[in-house]
């Protein structure tokens, strides 16, 4: 029994090998090979989905000059380096790794392959062949904060947060400052779910926040679960990364929509014509990398007008959400009146601003 199966297996394997050699021989044409690594499934309808939209735009605009591929659900542990390595071995010339946890693995592979170009999203380590990029989500969160502050009847806003890294902390602060600017009584409640994508935990957190009186939800996690919950509960929510209106046609007041396409296209083009250089891009509302989704049904005209005005002022550079006078949670001053925060202080932000209750998880 064992031997017959073994023989059949061996025969099958040989047939497969032969087939692959034949099919492989016909797929030869000079195209720039571009690869994307996603931390979640494309179907998260949030973060990874939006990066995949970027891939599709690259594919659409550069057509048959490029060959794109992607690999989803890559854990930020020991597998990441191998995945990036495999992409290099498969002949990819520019590789986008789209989660913070891919930073060190990407850097290791980049050091071994100086001719390949790497684009890491949301990290702080760079190399001659490894550029970084990120989006100024906080600008959008400030605008959404204004809307939330106006629309909350309970003056309680719930915030589902992932990890206490600067990007998330500055988002909470920005949303709070936006809400506070139009509603001095507003309170923020934050729940940390220690995950970027965990629909179950996110929905639990949304429920816990609603049970504590929150009637507008923010999320800095990637699944539409909180939006779906808000829709069922009849409260409001702000979508994250993608337009989540399909999951909360009544609940979504707006969404911060990450738009990676233009940046990705420009980087791939640069790689193709030899002008690619390392660097760090941090694009906001003015760059088109961050968009604010069409306002929801429950947003009255006056609130929409306030939000529009704030969005335009930020996009034109007339206003920065982190403008003094501002104090840290402990009461110490960190921005004098009229002073704008420096990017390096923003990208290392590890404290709440004055007025937010609770402590950052240590």
């Amino acid at each position: 029994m064992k031997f017959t199966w073994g023989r059949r297996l061996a025969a099958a394997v040989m047939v497969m090998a032969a087939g692959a050699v034949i099919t492989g021989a016909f797929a030869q044409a000079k195209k720039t090979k571009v690869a994307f690594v996603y931390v979640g499934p494309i179907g998260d309808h949030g973060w990874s989905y939006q990066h995949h939209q970027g891939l599709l735009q690259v594919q659409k605009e550069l057509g048959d000059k490029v060959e794109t591929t992607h690999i989803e659900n890559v854990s930020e542990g020991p597998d990441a380096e191998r995945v990036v390595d495999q992409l290099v071995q498969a002949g990819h010339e520019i590789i986008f790794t789209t989660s913070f946890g891919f930073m060190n693995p990407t850097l290791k592979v980049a050091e071994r392959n100086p001719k390949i170009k790497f684009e890491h999203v949301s990290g702080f380590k760079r190399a001659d062949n490894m550029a970084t990029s990120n989006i100024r989500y906080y600008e959008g969160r400030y605008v959404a904060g204004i809307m939330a502050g106006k629309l909350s009847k309970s003056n309680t806003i719930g915030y589902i947060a992932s990890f206490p890294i600067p990007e998330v902390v500055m988002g909470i602060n920005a949303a709070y400052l936006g809400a506070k600017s139009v509603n001095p009584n507003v309170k923020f409640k934050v729940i940390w779910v220690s995950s970027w994508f965990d629909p179950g935990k996110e929905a639990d957190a949304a429920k816990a926040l609603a049970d504590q009186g929150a009637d507008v939800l923010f999320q800095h996690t990637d699944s539409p679960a909180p939006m779906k919950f808000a829709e069922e509960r009849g409260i409001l929510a702000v979508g994250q990364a993608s337009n989540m209106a399909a999951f909360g046609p009544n609940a979504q007041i707006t969404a911060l929509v990450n738009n990676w396409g233009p940046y990705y296209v420009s980087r791939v083009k640069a790689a193709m014509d030899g002008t690619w250089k390392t660097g760090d891009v941090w694009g906001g509302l003015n760059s088109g990398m961050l968009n604010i989704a069409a306002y929801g049904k429950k947003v009255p005209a006056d609130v929409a007008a306030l939000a529009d005005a704030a969005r335009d002022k930020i996009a034109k550079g007339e206003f920065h959400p982190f403008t003094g006078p501002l104090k840290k949670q402990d009461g110490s001053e960190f921005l004098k009146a009229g002073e704008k925060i420096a990017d390096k202080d923003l990208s290392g932000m590890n404290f709440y601003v004055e007025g937010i209750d609770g402590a950052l998880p240590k």
Partner: protein
Amino acid sequence: MLRLEPRRAPSEAMIYATPFVAVALTLAAGCVLFALLGRDPIQAMYLIFIKPLTTLSGRAELAVKATPLILIATGLAVGFRAGVWNIGAEGQFTVGALTGGSVALAVYPAGGPWLLPLMALAGVIGGMAWAAIPAFLRTRFNANEILVSLMLSYVAVLLLGVLVHGLLRDPQGFNFPESRLFQSSALLPVLIPGTRAHIGAIFALVAVALTQLFMARHISGYQIKVLGLAPKAARFAGFCERRIIWGCFLLSGGLAGLAGLCEAAGPVGQLVPALPVGYGFTAIIVAFLGRLHPLGILAGGLLIGLTYIGGEAAQIALRLPAAAIAIFQGMLLFFLLASDILVRFRPVWRPRPRPTASSGPEPMPATTLAP
């Protein structure tokens, strides 16, 4: 209605043939799956099973991936043969990485030839300590070790999360939840220059050889087998069940801890929250795929490792969704369990069920699986 009746004597040959049957069925079903997704199934199989073996880096990566699986499964299998169900290797793996890695971080930036042995020792002890909890609760209070060890896995993963968010966080890392990168003397030596294949692969081979020797030649190995096959006979013969349970847990916990340390000090080089990626659970499949035999586990670990690495290659080249690969891997376990059941039970068609009949399959078929 269709019923399963136990066979009087399961065929010895079939018990060893089932892994091959399961692999063959998985290949066949996988071909159908990939064809339905509009991909060339033969190319997919080539990418999954052959392509990674054609390059040096592919073979090295296979060693990297299979090392923790084999280390953990070897330890677990010893326990499984005694009927000691340590399902929590994931937790012991995590704690081993944590304790071993903490040694490097505690002395940072100091280092030297003494550091790695110390880390390995700490990793083994960490894994053992985590496994000692279910062992103690089982022997002292007769608590179900399946539940206790499983639940402790989640505790361990959360513990790692808490520590890399706080105490062990990289002071220069902008609050990102990661430890700093280990100093170079805390990294496992690489076996093949230019690849990630590290000395942990040697540990795995040594573990396989020693376990094989131990089970075949040592009196305790004999006692373990007897306890698993016939617990009453073992007690009657005066074997100390308590000691065997403790031994099994400490062995499997220690090996899982070592595997965790090898991951942290090997391919990753730091402590990150995503360090545990399910090796502790996958190793259970490997153990059964290998018929709980150390040499079988070696083969099973390599096969499962290959499906992971090849699965990535198939995603890259064919743009297969990750879920399709996960289904493909899941089918292997499904077909293995299904063919195991059919080896031990035979399906019988009976027009009317007898009211008193109760011959469903037991949840844990280990005792008759073990040769």
